[in-house]
């Protein structure tokens, strides 16, 4: 899933100060599962903003709404929902960066009477897994050319701080990465895993230069499935 953290409250508050009608817009998919931007978080943030502006004697209307996914038109097309969006001065989206941009684009395509202002309430962090209660870790950088079949199912591009393909580097110590004793050395994990599987020979040949074109280095990416296009 895509994970995110809520921005500091003061930063959020500053970004919506000056608007009279605010909608906090939650997203019920990834960011709801990682408890950063779902329905519940939208409600809480709206209450906090009401309280903060109320304490300052400001008359600000803050409501919360949520959709299943802000990264897909079909979940935001409900006319009653769009009427509410139209009535607001600002939409504080607590979706990931994809959702914020897509909602902004969708609202401005759909609501023609006036421009819709959409600003982010989260910092989008990574594509990761829920490792334990309250713990998420990054697992994929979306490099576009998966190497997991030869690295024991552990991604060195993502989990090695230097994205080494022929690791581990000289900073690997006691199974931990040189940059942080709380971070596992990905190559240590890879070696251990391949050893158990009896496949250590897989990483003996030199892994040659990676083609970064399928990654973001090739520019913003687009996926086209002609068979699905109308």
């Amino acid at each position, binding site marked *: 899933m895509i994970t995110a953290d809520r921005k500091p409250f003061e930063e959020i508050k500053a970004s919506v100060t000056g608007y009279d009608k605010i909608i906090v817009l939650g997203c019920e998919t990834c960011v709801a599962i990682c408890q950063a931007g779902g329905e519940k978080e939208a409600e809480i943030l709206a209450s906090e903003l009401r309280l903060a502006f109320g304490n300052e004697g400001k008359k600000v209307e803050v409501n919360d709404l949520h959709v299943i996914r802000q990264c897909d038109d079909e979940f935001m097309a409900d006319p009653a929902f769009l009427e509410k969006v139209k009535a607001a001065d600002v939409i504080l989206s607590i979706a990931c960066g994809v959702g914020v941009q897509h909602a902004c684009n969708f609202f401005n395509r759909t609501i023609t009477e006036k421009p819709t202002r959409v600003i982010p309430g989260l910092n989008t962090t990574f594509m990761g897994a829920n490792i334990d209660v309250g713990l998420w870790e990054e697992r994929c950088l979306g490099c576009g050319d998966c190497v997991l079949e030869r690295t024991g199912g552990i991604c060195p591009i993502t989990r090695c701080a*230097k994205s*080494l393909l022929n690791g581990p580097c*000289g*900073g690997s110590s006691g199974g931990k990465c*040189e940059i942080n004793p709380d971070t596992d050395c990905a190559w240590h994990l890879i070696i251990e895993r391949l050893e158990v599987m009896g496949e250590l020979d897989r990483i003996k040949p030199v892994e040659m*230069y990676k083609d970064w074109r399928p990654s973001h280095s090739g520019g913003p990416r687009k996926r086209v499935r002609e068979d699905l296009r109308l």
Partner: protein
Amino acid sequence: MKSGSNLEKLLEKGEFVVTGELGPPKGTDVEAVKQKAGMLKGNVDAVNITDNQTAIVRMSSIATSKILVDEGLEPTMQMVARDRNRLAMMSDLFGAVALGIKNMLCLSGDHQTFGNHPEAKNVFDIDSIQMIRMVKDMRDEHKVICGDEIEGEFKMFIGAASNPFADPFQYRVHRLAKKVEAGVDFIQTQCIYDMKRFKEFMKQVVDMGLHEKCKILAGVTPLKSVGMARYMAANVSGIIIPEEIIERLKGAGKGNVAAEGIKILCEQIQEVREIEGIAGIHLMAIEWEHRVHEIVEMAGLLPRPKP
């Protein structure tokens, strides 16, 4: 000859070589480089010029190397994968050859979080092992990565590092084997203090015949103080300093620790000379260039041979 460098010729002749190290200044102080170079001249066969070591911004390794060439010393230009993509590396290598640099060292590089610009974006387009292959292909195939021909001569003696003290220990020799497969000519190891582990490592190296495919220089660093030893043991990743060495430094008493450190170093040099597969030492006297002459002399390594 791969580059015809002093270092290559001496290693080919079977001389026990001594390489030194020089950290460029955090600025433009050419005189500081010349001063350090002067202390190393005649005492070492080649000098590693570090490349923004520990991710702290310094005069570039290529420019500093050129100053050494002009001073009549032979540089080994270090290059890290942290700061350059493949285009910048190859372009800098053309420049290095054009400026008379004949040795280089391929490194991944310390992560930028250690340095003075932890906010920086790193590169790591290719890793140190791929860098070795890249330089080898530039030299032997006369081609850049994409296959385009190189205009003009390209000669380079290719080095890399090996850290027998990092983990997982049993895999370390295989990583060295990959560097050999990639085409490395010489290896300089991380500073050795844990001699037992180093000997175990070298036995694996010799068993695999890697010492016959590349020249291995044992890395040594004098311990200047008990504080430095403790700091390195605790904070420098991939360095193991046995407690008995720290105890020995402490036992030397006030005012005698540095001398004891040099004594320990000379003993270490004698010990590594006895190890099969060791072709020389890489003396990293960090900010102690003024004592290199004394160390090399005490270790019985002067005068340096002529190639």
